[in-house]
Every structure is written in structure tokens, then in C-alpha cells.
């Protein structure tokens, strides 16, 4: 390890339920405040207490880094995983364990520096801590890291204060434990401190995508949420409710202006949101794989009856229960073509929590403009991990409720001797005018139905009447790309293109840097919505080779691209990552290098 490093990777291996996550968030925030870009990744079990868990914090002063398994510092507070965890340590790395661990039993590279910390003894010196003892251990190692990473301890105080905002006692207790850890490190003259060349503090925040989405929903003026708890989506709804409660229900006597209902299952949660959306509220639900499966029939109803509603699908690894606490992008097909019958739903792919915020805001506009159910396709990595992003700015676009057939609109029709048909296409864009329930006008009444209907919303089995409506709906969705978030392109004058979406975006800066070291330049395109814009097709057409990165086994976005743009499978290659861990840049580098070499061999 150099004294002046450009990056550092820390792993805290512990047992879940011991409070280390809070400590690791404090550490991440202090590092961010010191001017570093931090990438925390929490690999946690589907369990409440007693199972192994790993918290990674990768950090650099220059670029946003992705996930990496090899670490410079390993803090192990879980003996059961120690032998495997040691394998993750880089040569010259640092291993921190309790002083009761007998390291002679383990095969450890001699260059690794071993530090045994008397955690239990140090915790005892913290004062009356019977209840909090196991939590304070975490503050001790924070003290060491503060010393080792040469971070101003005031930044830790601020972060501890931030986390224990509601309790002065807990703040003091944790601060004290942190001090004891720091003091111990100084006194033991560990003398191995590094300097990460921290940049000046920028206007950044460390936030998880679910919280950012919740803020987006708040600013989109969502008034209705119905949900069924499921990892990793629950915190999105809980944060939305918390925000609404604290910001809008100030007074005991004041009635709420929003409704939040915890439903009996995901069938009910999506149905309630559809009922509310139909009745004019801005309504949403949040779910993950198994919940999405249960919502299929209702999604089709919403599609065919043209009812706006937003679903946040925070993806986890499937199939079935799968890996509930691991990330994937494997619900693309299930969401894009949710339900039986001919359907298609616009999908938005936020690439980081900033876009989780922006797209949440936009999703309600899009759902109402298109009068349809729309999916925001987040995943556990964006949703539950914290990302360093720029501080949020209020969205530029204003609220758009789409085409509404209000009393004025209907009066105007009457004055021109025209009639109102709920599902007609007067503007030739496939989007009809929506008369909201209880519109007090004799033309406004109609019965919304999921059964075959004519443009007048009457029941029909007539081939022509049926086709006109179903073709109209298909038209509005197929042509929706222009109002959906457009792809982001990074053009480096290459003939090789790299396409990815969602949380995979996190590796792009690092990937570019490593490929530069290999003297390879490629162009990047980040998909942000489906149906795809023609820009994506042009990107594929204008490159000799294209790599499409999917975080699923079945190449789902690759297949959807192929469906829309019909390309040659030799030219466009699928790269799939699906083991539940966040994607790392090295995996992509290997694939790209192999492809480049393959090409050269072919020419030779």
C-alpha cells in the first residue's frame, strides 16, 4: 500500500443484527464529507439476527467506483467467515480482528498486517453499556479507520450526530466509543496511516434509491399508495409515508391529504392503486419479483382500461423466492409484457439514486400522459445501497396530468354538436380524453371495463370495434419513446459500443479508466427507458461490435433490443451477470478484451 493512494476498499464482515450497518453508514458519510466518492455495498442475508453479513465500502477521490470483492482492509467480527474472508484480502492488506481470535489457525499471507483489537475491553471502558455493548464494538473500529484514513474526526462527530439525531444519550455513548477506538489506535502507534488525497467537499449526498424515489413521489404530489411489504421495496413506501407524515400532518387535528394502505397481498395493493388512479389520484405501489408476479392480471386490466398508475419494481434475484436480499435485473420481460393478452408497459431504468428521484417524479406525468400503468425498474443495488450523488435539484418539468375531459371540454364538444367517446383518438396519437369519475356532465358517464369494449366504452365482441381500441392503445405505447427518458451516450470515437442500464451504470467510469489503461476506447450507451428510442437502434447500427450488459441470465434487454432492432447476433453480444453480487468492472473488462482479441484473430 502506498502512502498516497487513489482508492481503498474496506470490508466489514460481521453478524447481522449487531448494529454494524449504522456504523458503516456513519463511516461512509464521514468519508464522503472528507471529499471522497464512496460506494457502499451491503451484502446482507434474508434474516433478522445471527447470519453472516458483509459491508463493503469502496472509495476514491477521482471517480465513482463500482463493486470489487478484493479488499485492502478487512474488519472481521465474525469468526465463522474468517477463513474465507481472508482470501479476499490483497497482499499488503490489513486484517483487523478481536484480540480473542487465534490467528495461528489461519493461513495468512505474511505481508498482511494483522491488528488485534481488544474490542471487549475497550467497550467495557465506555461506561454503562450493558444494553448497547454489542453495538459499540462498531464504533471502536470506526475510531481506528478515522485514524488510519486520516479523516478529520469532526466529520465523524457530525455523522454520528446525524445518525443519532433523536437521542443525545446515544450520541454521546457512540461518540465516546469512537473516541476510545481512535485513542487506542494512536496509543498503539499503528503508524500505517494512509492519505487518500481527498478533494474539497462538494455538494454531494449519500442516499439509497428507495429514499430518493420516495422524495420523487412526494414532489410528484402522489396522494395514494397501497403496498404489501416485500424486500427490497418496503423502504420506498415507508420513507414516502414518513415524509408525508412529517411534512403534511403537522397537527393532531389536521386530517391527512394522502392515503397509505398496507394491503392484504400484492393483488390487492395494485388493485387499490388502480382504483385510486382511476378516480383521479396520483397513485402508486412498490414491489419486487414475487409481488410483480401476483400483479400480472391487474396490470393487464389497467392497460386495457387505460388507467394511470405507477409501479416501482425494486428487482431482486429470482425465480420464485430466489435471493430476496440480492440484486438483479431479471424482471424485464415480466414487467414489459405483464399480464396475459397483448400488452406492453413503458419501463424506466434509473441508473442511480438521482435518477430514482427524477424518474419517480416523471413516472406520474408519463402514466397520466399515456393513461397507462408504468414500471420504474429499480433494483436492490440502487434501491437499498447508498450511492454518492449530487444533491437533488427540483425537477425542471412541471406536473402534467394528461388529457382530461372536464366539464369545459365536454361543453365545448356539445357546442360543436359532437359526442364524447372515452376511447376515441381525436388527436391521432392513441391518447384519448379521460373523463374523471363524478364529472357532472351528461356526456361524462361510462363504465370502465376490462372486457372487450368499443371506443364508446360499450361492451363489444365486434372484430372491428375491438381492434380499433386495442390498436389505439398499442400505438400510444409504441410511440411513447419521445416522452420517456432518452439514452445517455458517451462517444469516444470508437467502433465498439457498450450498452447497459440500471445499476450497472455504476461501473462505467471505472470501466472506461481500466480500458484506457489497456489502450482501448469504446463508446457507451446507457438505456433509460423502454420502448427504446431510435437513438439506441442507430447506436447499434453505427458500431462494428456492440456489447449488451444484462444483470440476468436470459439476456433480457439484449433480447428486447433484438426484437425491436433485429440485429446480427455475431455483431451484438450479450454479457450476463447473474450471481446476485453487484457487477464489477473487471468482469466487463475481461469480456471486452476477449472480444477485441477475437476480432483481431479473425482478421489475422
Amino acid at each position, binding site marked *: 500500500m502506498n502512502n498516497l493512494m487513489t482508492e481503498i476498499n474496506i470490508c466489514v464482515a460481521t453478524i447481522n443484527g449487531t448494529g454494524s450497518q449504522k456504523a458503516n453508514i456513519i463511516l461512509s458519510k464521514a468519508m464522503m464529507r472528507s471529499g471522497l466518492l464512496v460506494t457502499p455495498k451491503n451484502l446482507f442475508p434474508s434474516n433478522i439476527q445471527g447470519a453472516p453479513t458483509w459491508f463493503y465500502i469502496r472509495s476514491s477521490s477521482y471517480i465513482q467506483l463500482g463493486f470489487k470483492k478484493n479488499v485492502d482492509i478487512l474488519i472481521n467480527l465474525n469468526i465463522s467467515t474468517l477463513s474465507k474472508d481472508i482470501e479476499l484480502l490483497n497482499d499488503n492488506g490489513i486484517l483487523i480482528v478481536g484480540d480473542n481470535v487465534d490467528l495461528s489457525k489461519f493461513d495468512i499471507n505474511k505481508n498482511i498486517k494483522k491488528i488485534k483489537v481488544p474490542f471487549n475491553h475497550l467497550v467495557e471502558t465506555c461506561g454503562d453499556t450493558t444494553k448497547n455493548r454489542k453495538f459499540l464494538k462498531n464504533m471502536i473500529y470506526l475510531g481506528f479507520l478515522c485514524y488510519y484514513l486520516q479523516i478529520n474526526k469532526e466529520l465523524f462527530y457530525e455523522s454520528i450526530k446525524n445518525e443519532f439525531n433523536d437521542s443525545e444519550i446515544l450520541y454521546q455513548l457512540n461518540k465516546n466509543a469512537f473516541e476510545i477506538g481512535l485513542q487506542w489506535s494512536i496509543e498503539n502507534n499503528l503508524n500505517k496511516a494512509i492519505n487518500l488525497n481527498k478533494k474539497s467537499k462538494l455538494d454531494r*449526498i*449519500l442516499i439509497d434509491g428507495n429514499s430518493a424515489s420516495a422524495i420523487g413521489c412526494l414532489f410528484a404530489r402522489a*396522494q395514494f399508495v397501497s403496498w404489501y411489504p416485500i424486500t427490497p421495496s418496503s423502504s420506498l413506501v415507508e420513507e414516502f409515508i414518513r415524509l408525508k407524515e412529517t411534512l403534511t400532518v403537522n397537527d393532531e387535528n389536521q386530517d391527512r*391529504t394522502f392515503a397509505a394502505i398496507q394491503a392484504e397481498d400484492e393483488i390487492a395493493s395494485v*388493485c387499490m392503486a388502480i382504483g*385510486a*388512479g*382511476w378516480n383521479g389520484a396520483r397513485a402508486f405501489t412498490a414491489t419486487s419479483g414475487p409481488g410483480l408476479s401476483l400483479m400480472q392480471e391487474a396490470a393487464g386490466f389497467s392497460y386495457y382500461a387505460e388507467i394511470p398508475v405507477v409501479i416501482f419494481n425494486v428487482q431482486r434475484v429470482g425465480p420464485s423466492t430466489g435471493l430476496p436480499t440480492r440484486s438483479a435485473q431479471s424482471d424485464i420481460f415480466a414487467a414489459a409484457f405483464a399480464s396475459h393478452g397483448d400488452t406492453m408497459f413503458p419501463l424506466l431504468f434509473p441508473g442511480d439514486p438521482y435518477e430514482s428521484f427524477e424518474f419517480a417524479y416523471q413516472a406520474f406525468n408519463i402514466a397520466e400522459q399515456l393513461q397507462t400503468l408504468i414500471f420504474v425498474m429499480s433494483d436492490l443495488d440502487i434501491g437499498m445501497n447508498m450511492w454518492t450523488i449530487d444533491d437533488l435539484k427540483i425537477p425542471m418539468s412541471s406536473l402534467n396530468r394528461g388529457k382530461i375531459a372536464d366539464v369545459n371540454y365536454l361543453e365545448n364538444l356539445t357546442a360543436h354538436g359532437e359526442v364524447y367517446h372515452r376511447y376515441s383518438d381525436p388527436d391521432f396519437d392513441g391518447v384519448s380524453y379521460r373523463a374523471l369519475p363524478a364529472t357532472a356532465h351528461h356526456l361524462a358517464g361510462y363504465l370502465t371495463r376490462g372486457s372487450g369494449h368499443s371506443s364508446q366504452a360499450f361492451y363489444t365482441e365486434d372484430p372491428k370495434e375491438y381492434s380499433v381500441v386495442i390498436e389505439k392503445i398499442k400505438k400510444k405505447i409504441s410511440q411513447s419513446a419521445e416522452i420517456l427518458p432518452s439514452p445517455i451516450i458517451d462517444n469516444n470515437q470508437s467502433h465498439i459500443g457498450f450498452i447497459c442500464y440500471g445499476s450497472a451504470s455504476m461501473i462505467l467510469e471505472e470501466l472506461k479508466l481500466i480500458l484506457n489503461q489497456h489502450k482501448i476506447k469504446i463508446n457507451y450507451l446507457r438505456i433509460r427507458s423502454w420502448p427504446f428510442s431510435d437513438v439506441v437502434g442507430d447506436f447499434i447500427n453505427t458500431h462494428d461490435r456492440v456489447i449488451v450488459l444484462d444483470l440476468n441470465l436470459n439476456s433480457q434487454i439484449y433480447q428486447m433490443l433484438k426484437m425491436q432492432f433485429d440485429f446480427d447476433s455475431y455483431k451484438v453480444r450479450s454479457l450476463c451477470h447473474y450471481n446476485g453480487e453487484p457487477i464489477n468492472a473487471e468482469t466487463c473488462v475481461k469480456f471486452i478484451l476477449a472480444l477485441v482479441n477475437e476480432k483481431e484473430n479473425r482478421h489475422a
Partner: protein
Amino acid sequence: MHNQQLNIDKKSYEGGLSTLCVGCGHDLITGVIKNTLHRMQISPYDIIKMSGIGCSSKTPGYFLNLSQGINSMHGRMAPIATGAYLARNDKYYIGISGDGDTASIGLGGFCHMIRRNPRMVYLVANNGVYGLTKGQFSPTSEIGSFTKTQTSNEFQSVDLCNLALNLGCDFVARAFVGDARQFTHILELAFKHNGLAFIDVVSPCVSFNNHDESQMSFKYVKEHKKTFYEVVDTDSNVSFFERIDEGIYKVKISDNETIFLKSVHDDKFSPKDKKSAFKILEIAKSMKYIPTGLIYLNAQSKNLVQTIRLKKRNLADIDLTSNLFNQNLLSHITNKYK
């Protein structure tokens, strides 16, 4: 919720032409709904219609064309209606479901809707049979009853009134389409109820379950129907619930309205006593007759909007124009993440 327009003509409550079988009990329900709402002079613009899927769920197309509504999915009327009600809680809601729609595929939704208690009239057009799929048993078919093709039902039936009572429904009634007078009185009372008003409406299926061995035929129900409490009169300015004479109860159902209930069957029972209600249903079951009329009423029901302290209006009108959502608020929120 008051009558903005007086003298709304009967025509305003009309709907499309029914496509149900000639003589279907459900068409009688449609008639009673139109008449009741006309009698109550509730504006069609203040009414929202809900249904699921099945013969029963087709009926919202046959009344109140001026109103809006949803003919939703099989078994999903309850959650769809709950969401709709919360978004716009200042309207009257009427939902019509069937025995398959409610007691089978939609049973979970039905149970949870009762727990939540939205202000809505929930009718089940109950004929003990799947009509649209041509004559299969439904969960409300009595054990031992036969289909038209002589298949016997081997399984216990679901008594929706009993279930509703059990789950805490504050308004439980049973009507029979063959007694329009009684049904109208119950329905009118249901619209005045401050929560979920559940009415199990026995409505025979003339095509598949009206034969001699059916326990849900017009003939069987007429012969085995017993009324418990009848709404005999309404008055105002009377204090809450009291027994005023043998078999006569006064019930204050809102600030300005009181009804009189007459116990037709047995003065030992009281309509606000849940134990009586369970007893009535038990006795009826063992004696194989069909209890009708009001079975249980708690006039102090607390509906969902009151429970979650929601503003009594259309939610969408509220914060779309608010200027609270500015950069200051956003910065205040994100401060926590710095």
C-alpha cells in the same frame, strides 16, 4: 353528500338494456337499485358503481348510465373499490358482486374490505351457482344441494352474512329479490350507513339453479324465508338506539335521521346485539330456512376515512396546486443524507 338537485327524474337512473337471461333475479336487483336511488334523489354524478366479473357484475351496465363505474376483474371489486373510495371519498359507492366473485376468488379481498370499512354498499347477488360458465357449484351452495345435472354438492357452504359479522361488519342484511319492498328498505338504509353495508341478496339463477332440488330457487326461498327486523318508519330528532315497545327499536342512524326497526321474528333478539345475530343465523341454518331483513346494525360505525383521518374530499384536488414543494423543502429533506 347531500342532494344538490331535487326532482331528478326517473330517466336519469336508467342504464343499458340487460343481456341477462329472461327472468334473472339480477334484473330485479337492477330495478330495486334504480327505484331506491330515485326515491332518495341522489344525483347520478354523486354515485360510483363497482363490480367484479360474473353475471352479477354485469348489472352496473344496466343502471345509471350517467354515473361512472368499474366492471373490474374477477374477485377484485373489493380492493379496486377501496382504492377508488379513498381517492374520492365524498361520493356514494355501490358495489355488486356475485357469490363466486366474493365467496370464492375474491374472499380475501372481501374479508379485508370489511376490516377496513369503507363507506360503501356491497351487494352480493347470491344464486349459489356459476352462471356465466354454465352451472358449476359456488361456495354458497348448500351442502347436499343438487345442480341441474344432478351432481350433489359435498362441501360446506360459506354464509357471507355470518362471515361479515365475524369480521366486524357493522351493517349486515339479507334480502330476496322476490320481496322488493323489503329489499328497497334495506338498500335505502344501507346508503345511509356510515361504513360498509353488506347485503346478501338471494337472487335465483333461472337457467342453472331454479330447479326443484335447489335450495336457492324462487320457490324454495319463498317458502323458507323468514324476516328478522324490518325497517318500518323513519323519523328525525330521536336519541340513539332504544327499545321503545315490544319488538320495536328506534335507531339513530345519523345526526338528523332515526329509523324504527320492527322485530318480526322474536322479540328476544336485538338488532344491535351481535350475539343475537349469530344466533339467528345458527337457528336458521339448523332449521333450513333463510333469514332475511336486517340482521345486525351498529349505527356508530367508524369508516375508513375516519379511521385514517383523511380529509373528506377528492384527494387529487389537494396538493397539486400547493406551493410547498420547492427547492427549500427539497434541500431540507436531503440535509439528512449529507
